[in-house]
C-alpha cells in the first residue's frame, strides 16, 4: 500500500501539523488524525506483528474493529500500553512503538517463528510441552505471550471521574440514523442523550461523501446537532457505550484526551436506541493477512474522515452491492480501482509486505492495495449484552437484532437497514412509535464464506493467527461447539473480541459440519464492547477508599496516647500503645490488666436492639441458647448459627425489659448480624410487633477489666452499687454518666471482673479520661486489641472465625446442652441432629500446653497423626500466644475428637518442623471463675 494525503477533504485541521515518532522514525500528521491515518498518510504499511507467528500486519479497519495496529505510546514521560492506532488521536510529541515486535514492526526478530507454523497450530502448547514438565517451558512461553508491557510508574492524576445519569432515551451512535432518531425523540419532548465514540458526529456519512437531504454531510450533521440541542437534547461525543447491564443501565466511557483517564457515566436510560452501524467483514482467502489488505469501509473512511488515500492501484474484491459507490469515491480521489467479483473463484494475494497482485479464479489483477468486503455485519454487541436475541437474515447474510422490546430497539445499519433512506425512515419511525418499519432494501450480497479444504494459509483471526486450518483441526478433534472452538483455537479472543473474525470462524465450522450458520450459533457477547482502562472502573475507589474502615469516636485520643492502629474486623482500632516493641507492649499490657486493670475501647461491639411484643420469642428463635428465660437486667452468652448449624457469631444478649433486648454481637459481625436479624424478622413474623434497630454507631463503649476494675467504675459517679452481690457477673444496669444515659454490663472477655460502660459517642472522651485518671492511681491503663487477644485466650474464650471454621458447630466448642435440651425451635436446630453433626471425628475446640523453651506454636500449624504409615492432619492451631501472666506459651486448636484427647501428647507440624504439645482444656486461667466473679 502506498498511502498518501490527498490535497483536500477530511475532518482534519490542516493548519495544525503535529509531529510524532513510530518505531524510532519521525513522522508528521494533522490535528484530527489518528495514529493509523497519520502513518498511512506517511506511507507506512507495517504497523504491527501478529501474536503467534509474528507475521507483519497493516491496518484492516479504520476504527474500533482493527485488530492489528496496537502501540505502546510514551507522551510527556508517561507510558500508555496497548493503544489502538486506529482509535488513538494524534498528539504532538507522541512516541509510539508497535507491541509484540522488536526492534520494529517492520523488522521483527521473532518473524522467523512463522517458518515453524506447521508445528504451532491450534492447541500446540497443550500437546507439545507436557513432557517432561510444563513448568520447564512455562516461564519462557509466558514471557513471549501477551501484548504490550506495563510501565512500573503510574501516571500522575490519571483518575477516572464517575457519575450517574438518567435520560428518557439514550441514542447510541451519532450516524445518520442516530442523529435522526435523537432529533425526533428530542422534538417529541423526550429527554435525549446522544452519544458517539468519534469526536465528530456523522458516523459513516463522511466515507459515503454524498449529500444527504440536499446538504453536504458536515452541514447536515451540524443542523441535526443544533436541532437536538435546541429541543433540549444532550450530545456526548468521544463517548463509547461499552456495555448494557440490568435495568437499562448503560456504561459510557467518555474519552477526555489522551493522557487523561476516561470518565465513566452510569447512564440509566428509559429506552435505548441502538444505532451502532455495521462493519465490513473480511473475506477468507490465501494470504489475506498481508499488510496492504484492508476493508473497503476502512479505505473510504480514511479518505472521507482523514483525507488519506490508502493506495494508488487498488484491487477492490467484493461480494456485495456497496462496493461500487466506494470504488467511485476512491477513483474520484485519484486511485486506479479494479473492481473484482470475489465470488468468481479461489482468491489468493501475492506479494510480501505489500501486495503485488490478487488472483481470483485463476485471473491476476496487479495492484498495490487490496480492499476486501465480505459483506456488512451489524454491530449487535450491545443488543446481546441486554439479553436480546439475534435473527439470521439470508438476504443480508448476517445476524440482526430480533425481538425488539420496549426498552431497547435497533435502527439503521445495526438493524440491517444498510440503505440510507431506509435507515432514516426507520429512525424517524422508531423515535415516534418505538417500533421499526419494514425495509425496502437495495443492498445485495452473494454470500461468500470460508471453504474448508481450500489451499493456502487463510486467516480467520488476524491478531491471534487463527487460520482456516486451525478451525478444521479443532473440528477433527471434536471442538465443534463455537464456545469450545473459541477457547481451543483462541478465535475471537484477541483484543477486538472477534469483531472481524467471529462470522468467518463460525461460518467455517458450519461448513465443516454441514450445518447452517444460525444452527452453529454465535459465542457470547460480553462487556466491554471495546477495551477500556481498568481505571474506568476504579475511579475514586482507591487508596483508603478502596475498603474504607470504620473509625472510632476516640481515634484521635488513642493516637495521642501512642496507639499503634490496625485493622480489626473492619475497624481501625488500637493494637497496642507506647514506644516499646510490639511484643514488649503486649506483654506489659496483658500483665497490667491481670495485676490491676486494662482499659480498652470496645465501641465496635454490636448494640442491636430488638423490640416489640414478639421480641422474646424472636431472640429465642435466633439464638442457639435459651433466651426466653432471661430476666430483665440479666445477660446471657450465646451463639447464632447458620441454617446448617454452623457457628456464625457469638455474643451476649442483654434484656432491658420484657419487650426489649440488646444484642452485643462481635465487632466485625454487626452489619451481618443486623442483616440476618432483618431477614428472619421478615420470615413469618408480624412486622408491627417486632423491630430491629442497629444503634452501634450511637454508643461508645469503654471496657474496664481486672482486679481494680470495680474501684475504677465506682469513680464514674453513676450512683450504682458495684459490689458483686448487687452487680454480679452477667448482669446489666442502666444509669447516667455526667447527664448522659449510660449502660453498664458486667460481662467479661478476659476472665477477670469486667465492666463494659456504654455512653452516647459524644461523651466518649469524657468517659475515657475519667477511667484513665481512675486507672492511673491504681497502676491500670489502656490496652490494645493484641493484649486483649492474649487475655481471652488464657481464659479459653474463642473468637468466631479465628478459633472456628466453616464447619464448627456449638457442640464442637463444648456447648452441647441446648442442642440436646432446648425445647423450642431455633435457627440451625435440624442441622445439629444430622449425620454430619454426629460424626465422631468432628474437630473440637481444645487448648494446647507447650513447654516454654520451644516458644509459642505457629498459628495455622497442623496437628498430625500417623495413619497407615502416612502423616495426616487431624487439626489446626487456631490461636497461639506467649502468656505473660502464666509464664508459658499457650495455644488453642481445633482437633479431631479433641475433647477426648485431653492429656494426650500430639505432634504439631509446621513448615517441616515437628513439635510436641499436650492437649488440654482451653481454659488455662482460673477455671473455677474466682477472678471472674470477684
Amino acid at each position, binding site marked *: 500500500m502506498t498511502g498518501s494525503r490527498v490535497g483536500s477533504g477530511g475532518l482534519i485541521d490542516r493548519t495544525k501539523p503535529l509531529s510524532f515518532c513510530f518505531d524510532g522514525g519521525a513522522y508528521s500528521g494533522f490535528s484530527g488524525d489518528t495514529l493509523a491515518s497519520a502513518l498511512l498518510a506517511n506511507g507506512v504499511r507495517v504497523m504491527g506483528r501478529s501474536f503467534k507467528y509474528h507475521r507483519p500486519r497493516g491496518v484492516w479497519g479504520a476504527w474500533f474493529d482493527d485488530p492489528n495496529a496496537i502501540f505502546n505510546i510514551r507522551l510527556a514521560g508517561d507510558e500508555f500500553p496497548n493503544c489502538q492506532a486506529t482509535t488513538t488521536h494524534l498528539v504532538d510529541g507522541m512516541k509510539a512503538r508497535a507491541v509484540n515486535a522488536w526492534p520494529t514492526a517492520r523488522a521483527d526478530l521473532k518473524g522467523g517463528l512463522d517458518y515453524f507454523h506447521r508445528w504451532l497450530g491450534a492447541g500446540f502448547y497443550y500437546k507439545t510441552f507436557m513432557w517432561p514438565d510444563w513448568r520447564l517451558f512455562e516461564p519462557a512461553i509466558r514471557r513471549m505471550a501477551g501484548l504490550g508491557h506495563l510501565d512500573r510508574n503510574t501516571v500522575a492524576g490519571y483518575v477516572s471521574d464517575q457519575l450517574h445519569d438518567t435520560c428518557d432515551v439514550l441514542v447510541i451512535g451519532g450516524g445518520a440514523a442516530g442523529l435522526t432518531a435523537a432529533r425526533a425523540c428530542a422534538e417529541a419532548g423526550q429527554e435525549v442523550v446522544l452519544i458517539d465514540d468519534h469526536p465528530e458526529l456523522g458516523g459513516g456519512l463522511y466515507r459515503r461523501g454524498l449529500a444527504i437531504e440536499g446538504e453536504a454531510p458536515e452541514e447536515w450533521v451540524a443542523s441535526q446537532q443544533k436541532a437536538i440541542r435546541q429541543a433540549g437534547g444532550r450530545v456526548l461525543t468521544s463517548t463509547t457505550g461499552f456495555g448494557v447491564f440490568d435495568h437499562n443501565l448503560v456504561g459510557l466511557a467518555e474519552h477526555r484526551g489522551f493522557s487523561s483517564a476516561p470518565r465513566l457515566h452510569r447512564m440509566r436510560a428509559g429506552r435505548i436506541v441502538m444505532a451502532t452501524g455495521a462493519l465490513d467483514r473480511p473475506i477468507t482467502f490465501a494470504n489475506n493477512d498481508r499488510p496492504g489488505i484492508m476493508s473497503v469501509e476502512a479505505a473510504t473512511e480514511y479518505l472521507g474522515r482523514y483525507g488519506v488515500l490508502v493506495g494508488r492501484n487498488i484491487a477492490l474484491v467484493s461480494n456485495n452491492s456497496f462496493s461500487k459507490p466506494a470504488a467511485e469515491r476512491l477513483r474520484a480521489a485519484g486511485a486506479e480501482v479494479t473492481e473484482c467479483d470475489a465470488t468468481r473463484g479461489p482468491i489468493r494475494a501475492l506479494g510480501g509486505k505489500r501486495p503485488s497482485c490478487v488472483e481470483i479464479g485463476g485471473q491476476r489483477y496487479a495492484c498495490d492495495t487490496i480492499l476486501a468486503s465480505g459483506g456488512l455485519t451489524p454491530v449487535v454487541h450491545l443488543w446481546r449484552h441486554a439479553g436480546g436475541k439475534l435473527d439470521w437474515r439470508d438476504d443480508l447474510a448476517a445476524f440482526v437484532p430480533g425481538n425488539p422490546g420496549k426498552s431497547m430497539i435497533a435502527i439503521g445499519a445495526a438493524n440491517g437497514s444498510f440503505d440510507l433512506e431506509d435507515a432514516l425512515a426507520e429512525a424517524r419511525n422508531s423515535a415516534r412509535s418505538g417500533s421499526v418499519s419494514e425495509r425496502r432494501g437495495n443492498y445485495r450480497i452473494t454470500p461468500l464464506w470460508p471453504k474448508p479444504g481450500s489451499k493456502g494459509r487463510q486467516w480467520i483471526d488476524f491478531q491471534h493467527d487463527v487460520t482456516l486450518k486451525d478451525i478444521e483441526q479443532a473440528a477433527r478433534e471434536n471442538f465443534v461447539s463455537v464456545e469450545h472452538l473459541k477457547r481451543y483455537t483462541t478465535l475471537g479472543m484477541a483484543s477486538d473480541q472477534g469483531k472481524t473474525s467471529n462470522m468467518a470462524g463460525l461460518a467455517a465450522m458450519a461448513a465443516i459440519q454441514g450445518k447452517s450458520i444460525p444452527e452453529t450459533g454465535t459465542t457470547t457477547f460480553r462487556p466491554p464492547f471495546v477495551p477500556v482502562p481498568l481505571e474506568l472502573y476504579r475511579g475514586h475507589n482507591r487508596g*483508603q477508599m478502596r475498603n474504607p474502615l470504620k473509625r472510632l469516636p476516640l481515634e484521635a485520643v488513642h493516637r495521642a496516647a501512642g496507639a499503634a492502629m490496625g485493622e480489626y474486623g473492619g475497624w481501625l482500632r488500637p493494637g497496642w500503645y507506647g514506644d516499646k516493641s510490639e511484643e514488649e507492649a503486649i506483654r506489659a499490657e496483658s500483665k497490667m490488666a491481670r495485676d490491676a486493670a486494662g482499659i480498652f475501647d470496645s465501641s465496635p461491639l454490636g448494640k442491636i436492639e430488638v423490640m416489640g411484643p414478639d421480641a422474646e420469642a424472636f431472640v429465642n428463635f435466633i439464638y442457639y441458647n435459651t433466651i426466653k428465660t432471661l430476666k430483665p437486667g440479666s445477660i446471657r452468652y450465646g451463639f447464632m448459627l447458620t441454617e446448617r448449624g454452623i457457628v456464625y457469631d457469638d455474643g451476649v444478649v442483654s434484656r432491658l425489659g420484657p419487650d426489649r433486648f440488646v444484642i452485643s454481637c462481635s465487632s466485625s459481625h454487626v452489619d451481618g448480624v443486623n442483616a440476618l436479624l432483618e431477614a428472619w424478622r421478615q420470615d413469618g413474623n408480624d412486622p408491627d410487633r417486632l423491630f430491629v434497630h442497629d*444503634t452501634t454507631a450511637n454508643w461508645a463503649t469503654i471496657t474496664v477489666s481486672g482486679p481494680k476494675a470495680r474501684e475504677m467504675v465506682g469513680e464514674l459517679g453513676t450512683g450504682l452499687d458495684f459490689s458483686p452481690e448487687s452487680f454480679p457477673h452477667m448482669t446489666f444496669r442502666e444509669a447516667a454518666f455526667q447527664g448522659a444515659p449510660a449502660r453498664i454490663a458486667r460481662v467479661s472477655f478476659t476472665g477477670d471482673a469486667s465492666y463494659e460502660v456504654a455512653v452516647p*459517642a459524644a461523651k466518649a472522651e469524657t468517659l475515657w479520661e475519667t477511667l484513665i485518671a481512675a486507672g492511673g492511681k491504681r497502676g491500670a491503663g489502656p490496652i490494645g486489641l493484641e493484649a486483649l487477644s492474649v487475655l481471652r485466650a488464657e481464659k479459653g474464650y474463642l473468637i468466631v472465625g479465628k478459633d472456628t471454621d466453616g464447619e464448627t458447630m456449638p457442640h464442637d466448642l463444648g456447648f452441647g446442652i441446648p442442642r440436646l435440651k432446648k425445647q423450642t425451635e431455633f435457627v440451625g436446630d435440624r442441622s445439629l441432629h444430622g449425620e454430619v453433626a454426629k460424626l465422631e471425628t468432628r474437630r473440637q475446640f481444645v487448648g494446647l500446653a507447650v513447654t516454654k523453651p520451644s516458644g509459642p506454636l505457629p498459628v495455622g500449624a497442623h496437628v498430625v497423626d500417623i495413619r497407615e504409615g502416612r502423616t495426616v492432619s487431624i487439626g489446626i492451631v487456631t490461636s497461639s500466644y506467649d502468656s505473660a501472666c502464666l509464664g508459658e506459651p499457650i495455644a488453642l486448636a481445633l482437633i479431631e475428637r479433641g475433647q477426648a484427647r485431653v492429656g494426650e501428647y500430639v505432634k504439631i507440624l509446621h513448615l517441616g518442623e515437628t513439635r510436641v504439645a499436650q492437649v488440654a482444656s482451653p481454659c488455662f486461667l482460673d477455671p473455677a471463675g474466682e477472678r471472674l466473679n470477684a
Partner: protein
Amino acid sequence: MRNDNLSWDVPIERKFLELSGLTIRQIRPKRMTVISGPFASIRKSTGIDRAIGWPEAPDGEPYLLRLRRDRVLMVNGPDLADGWNAELGLAISDMTCGYAVFEIKGADAMAFLRRGAGISLRTSSASVNRLFHGLAAMIYSWNDQNHFRVHVASPMQDAFWMLARNLANAADEHVTT
C-alpha cells in the same frame, strides 16, 4: 499485627470545604431519633404530619425522613423515651451520635451527588436511603435544588469526608454536553 497509623489519615474535626459552586460542611443536629412502627402512630408521637422522601425538602424543623415503609429518622424533634412504646406500638432509639450530617450546597451540588449516587431530581423515591459511593447514606433536598443534606453512619464519616474532598474537585468540572 502491623502499625498502620500512617496508612490512614488522621480524622479531622472541622469538616468544611468551599469551592466555586460547591460548599460542603458538617452540621450537628441537636437530636436524631430512629422510630419504627405504623406511620399513624409516628405522626401521633412526633406531631409531624409527613415524612419526606426524595427529592422532597422538609418544611422546617423538626422533620421526618422516611427510611423505609415503617421507619423514619426524626431530626431535631421532641425527646422521646428510648425503647418500646407499647401504647403506640413504636420502637424508638436515639441516634443523635449515630449519624454524621453534611450540608452540600451550591450550583455544583447535584453534580457532586451524581458522582456518588444513582440519583436524579426527576426520579422520586419514597425513601431517602441511598448508596453514596458504596456508603449507606440518607440524601434529601433542603429548600432548593442546589442545597442538600446527607447523613452517613458516624464511623464512616471520615470515609465520606475523604470521598467528598476527592469528588468535589471532579464535580467542579462541568460535564461536556
